[in-house]
């Protein structure tokens, strides 16, 4: 059994209430931090822990915190990014739904470290019921004195608010999230300035993922050095993985970073193998935007070493033969899956979610979707496949925010590893199976 730090007591009845959570050792990190540590000590512990952002980019959290500008007389904010909308990722929902107090505890401890008197939890619009749960937990925390003025008799006061988004994927991008939080249209800002200097209402702001903030509690409790012992290399600690696709046991699993991918897929503790005894065809390891990898490359790196669930190992080989850990949305596909159809679904999503601010993403995402639809309709040509490659290369890296890349990478990876499938569809349209059914399911007009 791997070590669990975040969701170890998710099966405890009524763990979402403050009393039960407290009885299981909750809010210990707040007590420890506020009573025995200075804010800088907390930041140091997080730095020592080597915790990396769990939202997808994997940026070291301690470093992010130390970049926060601290001018006199200007408020600082902590914003929790709970706008989890990446297809294939649902770990934050699980955490907030089951143990909302873990997030609130992390918010208080992190805010203490950053000197933020106010924090916001920006929850995705579709997670409305989750927002209710978190709001209720915040009410409980206020009533018990964990939030509000002079927490635990110290001079640290803190207010925490929940803001529900309008349901746009782009608002998960940190600057778009801040715009949306300010009540504006959720368009990403042009960086620099980074939020650490000018974020929410122009004030220094730290934006962290739900899981990152929740992970601050065990770090403070056990100490950064102890936390850094878990995991492998620079991928320290545990990570929530949302496993979905053609596996026997889909769900949210907490893993110690560094376990082999093969173990994660096939062991009974985690995914439990591919359903119906089928063979694995491909894996999207970190949410829909990271490159897809075929079986031989996801189980072993190009050098022949076993691939591990860690930031470095999954990224081994760059995008030629590697992928990213991303936000931990692990999608496994069996041998019957059509990569073209899968890619079409992803492209449709990015087309729908592009904010429309910069031209390559606004126009390119729709173009890619239409070409893929054309191929699935059986009208594609080989030139279309080449064109698809050309379009993605013209979007990648040319946009304001990473949505452009998120739209381009899956296309690039599918073409890199599964080009034969595209060519097959183009040359033998008869091989395209069940596409009418698929279009009907997705309310697409049959062409």
């Amino acid at each position, binding site marked *: 059994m791997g070590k669990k730090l975040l969701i170890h007591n998710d099966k405890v009845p009524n763990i979402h209430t403050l009393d039960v959570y407290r009885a299981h050792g909750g809010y210990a990190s707040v007590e420890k931090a506020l009573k025995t540590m200075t804010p800088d000590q907390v930041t140091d512990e997080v730095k020592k822990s080597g915790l990396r952002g769990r939202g997808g980019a994997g940026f070291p959290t301690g470093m992010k915190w130390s970049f926060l500008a601290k001018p006199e007389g200007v408020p600082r904010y902590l914003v929790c990014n709970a706008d989890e909308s990446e297809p294939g990722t649902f770990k934050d929902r699980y955490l907030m739904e089951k143990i909302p107090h873990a997030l609130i505890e992390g918010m208080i401890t992190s805010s203490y470290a950053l000197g933020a008197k106010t924090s916001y939890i920006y929850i995705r619009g579709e997670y409305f019921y989750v927002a209710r749960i978190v709001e209720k937990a915040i009410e409980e925390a206020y009533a018990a004195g964990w939030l509000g003025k002079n927490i635990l008799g110290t001079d640290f006061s803190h207010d925490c608010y929940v803001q529900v988004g309008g349901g*746009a994927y*782009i608002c998960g991008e940190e600057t778009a999230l801040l715009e949306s939080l300010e009540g504006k*249209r959720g368009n990403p800002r*042009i960086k620099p300035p980074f939020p650490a200097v000018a974020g929410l209402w122009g004030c220094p702001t730290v934006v962290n993922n739900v899981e990152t903030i929740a992970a601050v509690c065990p770090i403070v409790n056990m100490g950064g050095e102890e936390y850094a012992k878990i995991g492998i290399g620079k991928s320290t600690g545990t990570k929530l993985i949302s496993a979905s696709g053609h596996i026997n046991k889909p769900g949210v699993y907490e893993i110690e970073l560094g376990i082999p991918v093969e173990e994660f897929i096939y062991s009974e503790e985690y995914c439990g193998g591919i359903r119906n005894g089928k063979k694995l065809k491909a894996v999207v390891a970190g949410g829909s935007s990271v490159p897809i990898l075929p079986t031989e490359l996801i189980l072993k790196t190009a050098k022949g070493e076993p691939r591990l669930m860690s930031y470095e190992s999954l990224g081994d080989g760059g995008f030629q033969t590697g992928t990213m850990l991303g936000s931990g949305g692990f999608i496994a596909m069996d041998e019957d899956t059509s990569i073209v159809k899968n890619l079409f679904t992803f492209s449709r999503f990015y*087309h*729908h*979610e*592009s*904010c*429309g*601010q*910069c*031209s*390559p993403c*606004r*126009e*390119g*995402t*729709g*173009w890619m979707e*239409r070409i893929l639809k*054309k191929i699935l309709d059986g009208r594609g040509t080989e030139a279309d496949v080449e*064109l698809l490659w050309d379009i993605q*290369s*013209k979007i990648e*890296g*040319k*946009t*304001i925010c990473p949505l452009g890349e998120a739209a381009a990478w899956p296309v690039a990876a599918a073409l890199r590893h599964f080009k034969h499938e595209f060519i097959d569809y183009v040359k033998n349209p008869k091989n395209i199976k069940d596409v009418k059914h698929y279009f009907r399911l997705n309310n697409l007009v049959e062409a």
Partner: protein
Amino acid sequence: MKVTIDGIEIDVPKGTTILQAARMIGPEVAPPTMCYHSELKTSGGYCRTCIVKVTQGSTANPNPMPKPVASCRTEVMDGMVVQNVTSPEVLEARKGVVEFLLLNHPLDCPVCDQAGECNLQDLAYGHGAANTRYEFERREFDPIDIGDKIKLHMNRCIMCFRCVKVCEQITDGRVHGVVHRGENAEISTYIEKAIDNDFSGNVIDVCPVGALTDKTFRFKQRVWFTNPMDAHRNCENPKCKGLVRLWLKGDEILRVTARKDQWDEVHDFICNTCRYDKKKKTDWVIEGPTQVNRHSVISQNHYNHLNELKVQVMKQQKALGFMDINKQP
């Protein structure tokens, strides 16, 4: 601060953007722009035509920047080395951006009032491909009236956000913005509320394409058949300096616009009174013909350069011992 753009070094003050530095050097190295407008704060960064490659971040940190950056929104650092036209990568990327901008553009130049003074035409001519690879239906919107003087053709819009910034920053109340998302995003007024503001007409001037056009000028004349003249008047509006450009056909003033500089940017925004109500020659003090770039199609009606050319040709002919064909017998 020293910055090198395409191998040319220039000293610029702190806070200058790469684009401004490139413009200081000259039009040869200045990246093309569609959405950047120097008088409008926070403009730029959207269209991505001005992307350049930074091969050295600064003297202190000589690493190259990983991605191409929008030159209009990136400030220079001391010792920065930038590649614009010398980088094939940038030119290729720019070609891609032009293709994206034209993807849903109707290419209705023959019936568009902006033709001849359209930045997208110039951009496509300079950097685009000869034909499109897009074979699907283009997005379509119905043209709508924004107020009684402005027509919006959303089909032609390239989402540069300049008009939104004008409404935010130049006019008093913002009633104009972007609705919807992604490909379906469109410029619109607040629940079809018309813009009736002293300075609303400036959205026409800042529009780089024919999306926002002057209804009082629509279909009256192609711009290259008119004669632009710089003129001024004492405007009663304290915010308006009354510095305008008159577009004349004979003695008739067909339209009045703000003056644009070398980069097609407006610096003195004009009020609607100057723009729409002063259409008599007696209203204005005419300073003289506008200097139009020789490459612009508008310069067709300004024969000065042709005269120069003729003189040159005649000199050559003389030198070669030809007969002067222009001489009357």
